[in-house]
């Protein structure tokens, strides 16, 4: 392949002709397949030949990049690169490095190539001199600015993408280059910007430098000076640095807050450039995040009677008198069409105000409330909207007792503003009313007010989608609040009635109408309306049951209509919409089913089952969320019907098996695993005839390394469900299952990977559930009349596993990362073992770790764990005393 030909091909990729592009793509793919090293070598040659035309060079670098990196499979691409012979790699690396600063287009493609190669090689100890060479490029006097800029960019890419631990040993040299490029003496803005951007990426691994006072002072000085640059981009990048430094190194900020950071960020917040203002506000939002977190930690430490490791400096509270006026000012600078997904200073100010209220609690009120009173009736809509926004933002944080009278006072104004001539005002007002329901519901829990609010909200459901959406969410909050407020008799957790009962039917009716609005796609309205409907149903008292029944019929009816529409819809866009609708209807169906009286469920289960099976049928073999939703809905129906579900089991199982085999779409597989658990709980030993198949599928799932790991703990728990359901019938699976559990119990994970620690807890809890189900199932297996010895015989089948099980529990007991719920499960199993095996358990339970675990359980904050620990202790005492 001649270089000239390649250049020609690359040139043609930008002609705009689809055919040329296709042609080039094919050519390159073929070349890569035939001889990748050679292709990369040539591409790098083209890049590094400054006499080539710029397009060809840029395209060559792009192709090179694509061969080095894929977002989807970073590691595979890196491995492939590393397999290329060293001489070729060195050739390519030299070419890329030497191209730095020679390109005429920006940003430098060579810098990106250097970055990607570095990410593959540095962690494996290769290309060791790269960093020093790049640093030399930046700091050597007399190097052309282009080279300095591109080298800084390369450093920035490396800092951004590489595991920060790799760079820690070189943080000093890297920082030297970055700080050098950022100094105010630097005359070239491009260089300074590249350095500032790279600095932003380096902050994570320069911890050691931040711990050193003089080094930190210098970094802070350079960053603060950069915020004063006249170049907008440098200013923004420097401010981004401050935002990130605040979060990473909060504890060191005291020295800089008063003399510098406060003034810099205040000025930024007031800037007429949105990008700058956003960073200023973000800085204070981060302060709030950090201090709120610290307040929680302090509280926790206080509860445990110890000193907190870190404490808040209360910058946010201290700055309230200065911050709040600026934020309020920003709130009035909104535009009517601000309801889209753009992020702007006005929205940022609203969010920052909410965070401040959380931090400052009661103190916020005195700073915000005067603004609200002054502006809520302002002639300018922007002021009215800002007033309502400010009011809504401060509702969460202050003590409810303090904010309640203020909320009460505001309601008449809000009712009026719900009919404001300006749509943005109505939008925010509806949102604010929802916030009152959510955080200060005590202010509205009386007949009269609820009637007024309910009427107003129902009426405004017909408003523009953005307003109606907010109203729907506020109904969701209202339903929860009213339900929590209702009184329940002691033996029943559903109240007989509540304050919404008189309006319940009307609200539900209007919400159902809203779900059908033709403009429901806008502003997420349809979703919000369905969600509100579900929350209303979920939180309905007994005297609203008729409406629940009616809603069931409506939902079923719609489901059938959608299913038939699905069969003759070809347009992919419409199909997506239909899928979303089916998902929502399934979810609504679940909410009504959970409320259904046990006698009513069998009356309507036939058509429901028909519809759900139809959904499964028409989506069979497709990667579709609909299958998952239908399976989840079936699970609820199984739960509600109990043994009555037996008549559908043969119809459902084929779909369950299909889903269990769908390891690629693991959520579908997981939904099917859930259904198996539901079947076990509802059908009990009637499930036994189907268990051969079910168990085969489940064991297959466990054996597949490709199946997403999150499904596996669920499968283990489901073994427990099945064992518990079918008792003695489980014997024939015992050997397989115990072997599998043996493996699962031995799993280990890295101690510093929080995701994996969570996963290990889940996996272990799955094992505990399985053992518990097996022991309980065998113990309670149906014995012929009067023969209790049979159960004991069955239990002997597991005796050989007892030492292992106890060892497993001890492993859990010693694990400092064990979750609260796993403590309960482990103790429960101890209790079950002791009650099942009696005396022979004494030697196992008298061990120190078990004793400690029980003590820990008895001290648990979770009532369930505590009770279990008391119970298990007592059971142990019984066998000891006998």
């Amino acid at each position, binding site marked *: 392949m001649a270089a000239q030909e390649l250049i020609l091909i690359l040139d043609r990729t930008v002609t705009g002709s689809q055919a040329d592009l296709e042609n080039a793509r094919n050519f390159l793919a073929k070349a890569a397949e035939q001889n990748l090293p050679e292709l990369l070598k040539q591409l790098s040659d083209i890049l590094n030949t400054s006499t080539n035309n710029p397009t060809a060079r840029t395209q060559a670098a792009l192709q090179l990049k694509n061969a080095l990196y894929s977002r989807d499979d970073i590691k595979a691409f890196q491995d492939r690169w590393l397999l290329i012979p060293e001489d070729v790699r060195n050739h390519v690396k030299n070419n890329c490095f030497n191209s730095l600063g020679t390109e005429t287009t920006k940003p430098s493609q060579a810098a990106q190539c250097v970055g990607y190669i570095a990410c593959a090689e540095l962690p494996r100890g290769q290309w060791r001199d790269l960093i020093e060479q790049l640093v030399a490029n930046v700091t050597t006097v007399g190097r052309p600015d282009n080279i300095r800029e591109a080298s800084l960019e390369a450093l920035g890419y490396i800092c951004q*993408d590489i595991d920060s631990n790799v760079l820690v040993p070189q943080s000093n040299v890297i920082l030297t280059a970055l700080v050098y490029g950022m100094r105010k003496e630097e005359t070239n803005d491009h260089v300074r910007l590249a350095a500032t951007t790279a600095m932003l990426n380096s902050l994570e691994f320069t911890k050691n430098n931040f711990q050193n006072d003089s080094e930190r002072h210098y970094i802070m000085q350079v960053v603060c000076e950069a915020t004063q640059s006249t170049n907008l981009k440098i200013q923004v990048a420097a401010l981004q640095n401050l935002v990130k430094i605040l979060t990473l190194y909060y504890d060191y900020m005291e020295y800089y807050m008063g003399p510098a950071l406060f003034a810099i960020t205040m000025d930024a917040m007031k800037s007429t450039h949105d990008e700058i203002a956003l960073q200023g506000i973000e800085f204070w939002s981060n302060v709030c995040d950090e201090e709120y977190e610290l307040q929680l930690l302090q509280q926790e430490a206080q509860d445990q009677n110890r000193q907190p490791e870190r404490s808040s400096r209360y910058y946010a509270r201290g700055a309230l008198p200065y911050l709040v006026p600026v934020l309020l000012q920003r709130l009035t600078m909104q535009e009517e069409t601000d309801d889209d997904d753009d992020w702007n200073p006005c*929205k940022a100010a609203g969010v920052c105000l909410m965070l401040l209220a959380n931090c400052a609690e009661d103190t916020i009120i005195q700073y915000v409330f005067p603004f609200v009173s002054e502006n809520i009736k302002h002639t300018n809509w922007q002021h009215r909207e800002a007033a309502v926004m400010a009011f809504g933002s401060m509702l969460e944080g202050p003590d409810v007792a303090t904010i309640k009278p203020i909320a009460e006072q505001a309601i008449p104004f809000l009712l009026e503003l719900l009919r404001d001539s300006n749509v943005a005002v109505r939008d925010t007002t509806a*949102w604010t009313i929802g916030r009152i329901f959510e955080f200060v519901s005590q202010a509205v829990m009386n007949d009269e007010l609820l009637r007024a609010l309910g009427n107003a909200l129902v009426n405004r459901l017909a408003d523009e989608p953005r307003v109606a959406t907010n109203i729907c969410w506020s109904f969701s909050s209202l339903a929860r609040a009213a339900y929590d407020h209702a009184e329940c008799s002691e033996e029943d957790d559903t109240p007989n009635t509540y304050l919404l009962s008189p309006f319940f039917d009307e609200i539900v009716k209007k919400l159902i109408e809203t779900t059908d609005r033709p403009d429901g796609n806008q502003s997420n309205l349809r979703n919000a309306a369905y*969600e509100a409907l579900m929350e209303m149903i979920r939180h309905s008292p007994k005297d609203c049951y008729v409406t629940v029944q009616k809603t069931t019929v409506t939902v079923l009816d719609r489901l059938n209509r959608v299913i038939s529409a699905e069969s003759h819809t070809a347009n992919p866009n419409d199909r997506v919409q239909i899928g979303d609708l089916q998902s929502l209807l399934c979810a609504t169906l679940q909410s009504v089913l959970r409320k259904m009286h046990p006698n009513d469920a069998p009356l309507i289960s036939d058509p429901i089952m028909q519809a759900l099976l139809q959904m499964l049928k028409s989506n069979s073999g497709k990667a579709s969320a609909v299958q998952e939703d239908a399976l989840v809905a079936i699970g609820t129906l199984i739960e509600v019907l109990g043994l009555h579900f037996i008549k559908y089991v043969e119809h459902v199982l084929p779909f369950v098996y299909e889903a269990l085999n769908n390891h690629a779409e693991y959520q579908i597989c997981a*939904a099917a695993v859930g259904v198996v658990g539901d079947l076990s709980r509802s059908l009990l030993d009637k499930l036994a005839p189907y268990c051969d198949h079910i168990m085969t599928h489940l064991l297959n799932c466990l054996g597949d390394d490709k199946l997403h790991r999150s499904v596996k703990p669920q499968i283990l728990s489901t073994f427990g*469900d099945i064992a518990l359901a079918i008792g003695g019938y489980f014997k024939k699976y015992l050997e397989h299952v115990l072997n599998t559990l043996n493996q699962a119990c031995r799993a280990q994970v890295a101690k510093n990977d929080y995701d994996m620690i969570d996963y290990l807890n889940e996996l272990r809890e799955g094992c505990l559930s399985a053992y518990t*189900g097996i022991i309980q199932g065998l113990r309670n297996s149906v014995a012929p009349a009067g023969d209790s010895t049979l159960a004991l015989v069955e239990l002997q089948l597991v005796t050989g596993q007892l030492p292992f099980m106890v060892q497993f529990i001890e492993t859990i007991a010693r694990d400092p990362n064990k979750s609260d719920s796993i403590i309960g499960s482990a103790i*429960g199993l101890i209790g079950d073992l002791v009650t099942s095996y009696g005396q022979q358990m004494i030697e196992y339970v008298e061990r120190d770790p078990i004793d400690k675990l029980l003590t820990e359980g008895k001290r648990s904050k979770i009532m369930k764990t505590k009770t279990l620990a008391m119970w298990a202790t007592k059971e142990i005492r019984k066998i000891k005393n006998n």
Partner: protein
Amino acid sequence: MDSSTSKKTHPRLNSYKYHGKDPDERRRWRNQNTVSIRKIKRDEQIQAKRNFQADDSMSDKSEDDREQNRFYNLDDLVIKAKSEDPTIRFDAVRSARKLLSIDRNPPIDQLIQYNFLPIFVEYLTYDQCSDLQFEAAWALTNIASGNSQQTQAVADANALPYLLRLLHSPHANVCEQAVWALGNLIGDGPRLRDYAIELGVIKPLVEFIQKDIPVTFLRNVTWVLVNLCRHKEPPISLLAVGDILPALHYLIAYTDITILVDCTWALAYLLDCGNNMIQIIIDSGVIPHIIKLLNHNELKIVTAALRAIGNVVTGTDEQTQLVLNHGALAYFPKLLKHQKDKLNKEAVWFLSNITAGNQQQVQAVIDAQLIPDVIRHLQYGDFQTQKEAAWCISNLTMSGSAQQIEYIVTQYVIPPLCNLLQQQDAQIIQVCLDALHNILKQTTISNLEALTTEIEECGGLDKIEHLQNHTNKDIYQQSYEIIEKFFSHETDDDSISTMNQAPTTPNPTNEFSFGIMNSNQAVPDNNNGNNAQFQF
């Protein structure tokens, strides 16, 4: 390496209004919810198969009963308890302790008769056998939780110094058990309290508070502190209070309800021990913290805090003024409207001590808009509250200016005052008569006719006339005097004789009728001491 992050995906946008509730997120939430519902169902099913008893104490009792039915031969047990064999003596001591842990009628006296006490006390010194120490301390705790004689028997066996020593044990359970036993002993009365103080109990207790001990243990320690402060005949020495106060000051910043309740009661008890004690506590700076607790949403805490500051205002005018200066009155609208009668009563009692103060203090009550509520209680409150309200008004008529008295008349105080004259209780009648008499005396000539008319019209005059036949000498004299001076038109206003003085001291019938706590507690057997559950 996409350097520019898109504006649309700004993470904070999710916090703006309902932007975070996108369909995918909600769908995930719903499915997550299904998973947790399943977990709950699974747990319920597993739990159902366990031989669990809803009422835990039931199963415990049956076990205890079995234990008791096993019938211990105490002769045998006491010999075994003295055995040289560590296993035998430990088992015996534990069995004895178990006998003492039975819920109903534990055989405390029998064990005392069989001379177990010296054995238990001796074993407190066995530092090598912390389990034995623990069981012995537990047994002593339970004996000390009995009646006063039984408690005294533990003290007579010289247990106190040895229990005190155990506060330095390296074994947390032994420490905690010793604390518990000491609490029972100290709670018995001033004698054992002062003895324990003399032995130096306060220092180690206060040190526990500064250490990192579990909250359950801290509750026990606080409970001992409240027992130290509980008795006022005679009160704990001022010196000892000086040692306890910093601890109480520290504990009052806690959020744990049990600790707060005990700590506040401890202060309330101390504040009931005279003006010198009040001054010491004021000087410690803890009063503002107590006042803030009036706004706590836990009733038990509000009750204790109200009693505490109520005791402060029985002190000097300056001490009373300090409470007012810290804004205590601001909490009273809520307290006076509280649904619990007893809280209303205490609140009015508090105010009655303010209205017994100087005119500036009376004015503070008026300015806080509290008089209408007091009068409402005078009219509609339960009897105890009415009585306090009568004192409150009566005190006000004693110390208030003419103008202040005129104000309460405009708030319609006369009808309820007259109404109470028909009560059977001589004291309340007297208080109301005093009040009416003072009001009449302070009313200007121009208003006097309206006032007498009001008394007449609400039936007050009839009642006063009726009281002239009362068996109580003071009552019939005073009612006679009132009629003479204000309702018989021949008499001259100048001949008014000296009046009875309304008492300005707190009313003596005001007993601690709520917030009563047992000062003695047995340790039930189903708790292992580390995990103590107090039942107040």
